[in-house]
């Protein structure tokens, strides 16, 4: 009961903080002047009032028409969330699979792979997206085969944005998992299992992965956050009508921004809480949500 109340308080506190931050950004210019305080409170008051009547927020959908905010935001929201889910699944799969393969390789190859991964990680996601788009177009020019649609217009594309956005998270995941496995490998029970003649794959999958999962899940919140902030750039560069592009379009109206952020916040919080629950289930230790 207490934990439920705590969760609700947490969510409420975060929502209020979001409102504060947005209101603060609006009056940032007047910081240090006399009227700043009153303007700030007026802004907050307006924002909260608008949020309570979020059914009445109007959005201009095209040049001459306007629609309700709720009607306009649902489609992009659904689209973005499915993209997010896809990216999460793909990067989890890729990251874990590549670690599994890498660990089985000989030492020298492992070092080489680590080097390459380190270099790839320092390429900004924007440039990754650029080069993949160019690559698809180049393939199209050479062979006349359009493998996947490089840029979305009014229609819905999934494959390419999911692939491009999950490259960097899977590399991060690879490094986390790889380090965790290397740490785990030195422990006594692994040596014991080896000495007993247990199969290499069996040790890896059954014994090591189970323990490594804890470390991976405790980092997964960071991963989720990373994916979310990259999704913004992906949506913009692929011309996707997702929630982030929606936010970017209405960047100057604070009530739309606030309600979008709050909408994105719920799955984020849910994921946080689920991750904590999972860690609790696996280890019996309760990690605090920060």
């Amino acid at each position, binding site marked *: 009961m207490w934990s439920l109340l705590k969760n609700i308080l947490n969510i409420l506190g975060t929502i209020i903080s979001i409102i504060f931050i947005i209101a603060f950004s609006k009056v940032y210019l007047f910081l240090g002047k006399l009227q700043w305080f009153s303007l700030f409170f007026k802004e907050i008051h307006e924002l909260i009032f608008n949020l309570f009547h979020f059914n009445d927020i109007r959005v201009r959908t095209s040049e001459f028409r306007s629609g309700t905010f709720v009607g306009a935001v649902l489609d992009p929201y659904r689209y973005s969330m499915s993209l997010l889910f896809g990216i999460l699944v793909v990067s989890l799969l890729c990251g874990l699979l590549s670690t599994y393969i890498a660990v089985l390789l000989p030492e020298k190859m492992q070092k080489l792979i680590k080097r390459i991964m380190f270099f790839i990680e320092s*390429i900004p996601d924007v440039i990754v997206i650029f080069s993949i788009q160019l690559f698809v177009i180049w393939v199209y020019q050479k062979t006349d085969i359009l493998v996947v649609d490089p840029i979305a217009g009014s229609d819905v594309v999934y494959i390419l944005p999911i692939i491009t956005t999950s490259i960097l998270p899977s590399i991060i995941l690879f490094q986390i998992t790889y380090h965790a496995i290397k740490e785990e490998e030195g422990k006594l029970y692994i040596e014991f299992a080896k000495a007993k003649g247990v199969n290499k794959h069996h040790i890896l999958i059954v014994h090591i992965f189970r323990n490594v999962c804890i470390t991976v899940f405790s980092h997964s919140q960071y991963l989720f956050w990373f994916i979310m902030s990259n999704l913004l750039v992906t949506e913009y560069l692929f011309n996707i009508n997702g929630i982030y592009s929606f936010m970017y379009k209405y960047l100057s109206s604070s009530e739309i921004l606030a309600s979008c952020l709050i909408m994105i916040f719920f799955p984020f919080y849910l994921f946080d809480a689920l991750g904590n629950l999972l860690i609790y289930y696996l280890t019996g230790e309760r990690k605090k949500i920060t």
Partner: protein
Amino acid sequence: VKKIFLNKNFLIGILFIVVLLFLSSIYTLYLSDSISNPPNRIYDKDHHLLDVPPYSPSTNFILGVDRYGEDIFWKVIDGSKYTILIALIVSFLRVIISTLCGIIYSLYLYKWKMLVGPFIRAFRFIPTVILTMIFFLSINIDNTVSDFSVVLNQVFILIFVAVVPLTNVIATEVNEYSKNEFILCAKSIGARKRWIIRKHILPYMRPRLFILLAQQTVQTLLLLVHLGIFQFLIGRAKEYTSSDGIGSTIKISLSLSNEWSGLIGLSYRELMLDQWILVGPCIGFILTIFSFRLIGMGIQQVLDEQPKQFYSFGSPSIKRKVEILDLFTLVKRK
């Protein structure tokens, strides 16, 4: 400290940055006059027009020439000092401010965690790019302020945006560290918080702060790329009208300082036309980020090599004494 300069990764990283900065400042001071601009038109022997800017990369122009007839290679070199300096200043101030806040938060204000926690979470979860953009927007409304104060405000925003999450990181680190036995001992003997900060926490944090500095520089550079994509520039953009012959005029903003994120963001349209215009600043970004990460990794490696007790005893000489004492006691017991 000496060991750091023997580390290969650290050396390569810092050498690249220093050389780039040096070349860049030399360029603006001396070279920019002596290097002539690429020709406006290229003719062959019979005075047939071969090419007009943008030229594609060739032996004369390594990275090509952009639409306005400027050599991209030198543009990138020229812009590097602004980009790197902004990133360094921003990350330096970020680390300093958030270290102060983090130590204060973890030692004095941790009772208010319930209140501060949601605020930090809100900051952490709003994508930094969006946060920065809404602040930048509110600056751009006012047209009367001078260029310099715009840049100052923008740098301040870039710092402010990351301070809150970073404070949290440092606060948790300090909190974890203060659970060590020797700090508990010091406390029970009667050490004040100020003493603990000065003698235990700061020596422990110092090398880690340098790693954090390198990481934050990378973060700032990434943030700059993203801002550039959304056409939010450091400084004010120069509006530039060009007509395409048919009569319609397009407003093009040119970044004033050749700053990299501006170079990328403003020529984003060229991606489908002449890709090499974008390649230059992209390479610059990749190499710079890579070398900062190398620096961070180098420091990390040096730290990992050192024995763990090092920090708990304050200085290596004391530790050696302790070891000798141990030997003596062993001998005596025998």
